[in-house]
């Protein structure tokens, strides 16, 4: 089985979010970048499936040169080779077009990625790639088993889940508890240095809904503390001041 896993390069979940250049650019100063947490689940499951069924696992990222350490980390975790589409990921449509092109070229049976990136939270790329390639797409997938050409999945819905069956090839946006995150070992880190990482150019420049400027939410006022022996006061405030009851 040929598996493709799509990796985002995103700020660590504890990062302070700030913008520069008159609020048109994300401020990367002091920010640690990681594999998107949801992509990390997809990658972990992809490694397990590759090990179970044989075949190959390719990681792909749409990003400029600074994303390479993140892509190398996916090689250290277990991907066999990697593709970097050399461009800033301008919007979901742009990213989906690049992935669809290289996915088609590679003839993958299974394409996994996170349910969403944790920077833009769109959660759209898997569905777009699915429609572009004429493959079914599923998200958010919390369990995925492959038996021959049949794929059994659990997809999270509001307040529960649905159990699904579909045929390869397909695309899934993944989330926990599909697999446990894998931490690269020393052998993985050493071998990642020499695994192939191919840099390719974007196949189109087309965008449909790119961000033009950013804002931070207004600063939160300070908390109003209520004495623990006077909880009735809290009820009054919620009712009359906050008007949320």
């Amino acid at each position, binding site marked *: 089985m040929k598996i493709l896993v799509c990796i985002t390069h995103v700020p660590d979940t504890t990062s302070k979010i700030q913008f520069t250049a008159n609020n048109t650019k994300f401020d990367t100063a002091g920010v640690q970048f990681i594999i998107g947490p949801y992509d990390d689940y997809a990658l972990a499951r992809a490694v397990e499936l590759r090990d179970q069924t044989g075949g190959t696992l390719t990681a792909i990222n749409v990003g400029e040169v600074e994303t390479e350490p993140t892509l190398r980390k996916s090689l250290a975790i277990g991907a066999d080779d990697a593709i970097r589409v050399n461009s800033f990921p301008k919007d979901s449509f742009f990213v989906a077009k690049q992935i669809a092109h290289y996915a088609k070229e590679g003839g993958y049976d299974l394409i996994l990625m996170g349910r969403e990136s*944790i920077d833009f939270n769109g959660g759209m790329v898997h*569905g777009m790639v699915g429609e572009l390639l004429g493959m079914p797409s*599923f998200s958010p997938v919390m369990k995925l088993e492959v038996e021959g050409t049949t794929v059994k999945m659990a997809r999270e819905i509001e307040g529960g*889940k649905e159990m699904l069956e579909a045929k390869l090839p397909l695309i899934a946006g993944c989330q926990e508890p599909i697999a446990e995150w894998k931490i690269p070992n020393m052998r993985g880190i050493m071998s990642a240095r020499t695994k192939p990482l191919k840099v390719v150019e974007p196949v189109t420049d087309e965008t449909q809904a790119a961000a033009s400027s950013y804002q931070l*939410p207004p600063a939160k006022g300070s908390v109003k503390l209520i004495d623990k022996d006077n909880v*009735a006061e809290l009820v009054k405030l919620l009712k009359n001041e906050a008007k949320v009851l």
Partner: protein
Amino acid sequence: MSILVYIEHAEGKVKKTSLEAVSFANKLTAQTGEGDVIAVALGTVDSAELASVGKAGAAKVLHADDSRLTDGVIQAHASAVAQAFTAIGTKTLVLAKSSLGDAVAARLAIKLNAGLVSNVVELPNTSNGYVVKRSIYTGKAFAETTITTDNKILAVKKNAVDLKTDGGDATVEKLSVNLSDSDFASKIITTERATGEILLPEADIVVSGGRGLKGPENWGMIEDLAKTLGAATGCSKPVSDIGWRPHHEHVGQTGVKVAPTLYVAVGISGAIQHLAGVNSSKCIVVINKDPEAPFFKAADYGIVGDAFEVIPKLTEALKAEL
């Protein structure tokens, strides 16, 4: 020009988040001064229930009454909504952000060659282009996004607009859609859904517990408080990781993101990953015995005290007041 709204239903009821999407579209037609809101509903659901979508501002509901569509088969729903979009000759589709909505909207973006923006928090600004404000970085920031295509899809975040409830009944019209076997190539075998409970992602009030509660046997008081408030219950990541509560109750960066009007956090310290899941709440109440808990910095109201003392008292006080 009319606006199409894709509405979802579960257990015979149109989802409240879908009604919010209808309210959003209604405000959008008022802003542009033209057209009606036309909703599209798929699968088996009562006509009277669909007519009531008028209260939220829909003039008409197109109903593809095909029982195969009652379950949310993603490919089939995308095909059916695309046909409704073309049939009424609109350029704008609005829907509520949801598990199914997101999956369907992404495919529709390609089918309809429509610029898609998710997590929309305000009506678009059309004074210079078509600029949509969306929530990004899990609620920690916003982006102004310009849609450059003729066709547009807006996936609206909860609480983007107030729910409209004063409209009249909508007319319900049957919609026939052509669906192929390939639309149903994937099969939903079973669906498990908590019934009779208020669903966490859609709740107006959420009460969450953390490790401060010391064990799953102490959740009774959280449930009592939630019941009194008509709230859904949630929990922090450590609590679901150690199995005190089910995974679908995990609120946070990698769990459910909630946007209720009132969020009550009990015994949760307020790690940044938890805050990411709740920062769209209108009002946050934090109850924690540690006055240094970081959650207090993100709260509107706080009580420094032992949950085991405060929560039963708070529940009693609420019962007396509500």
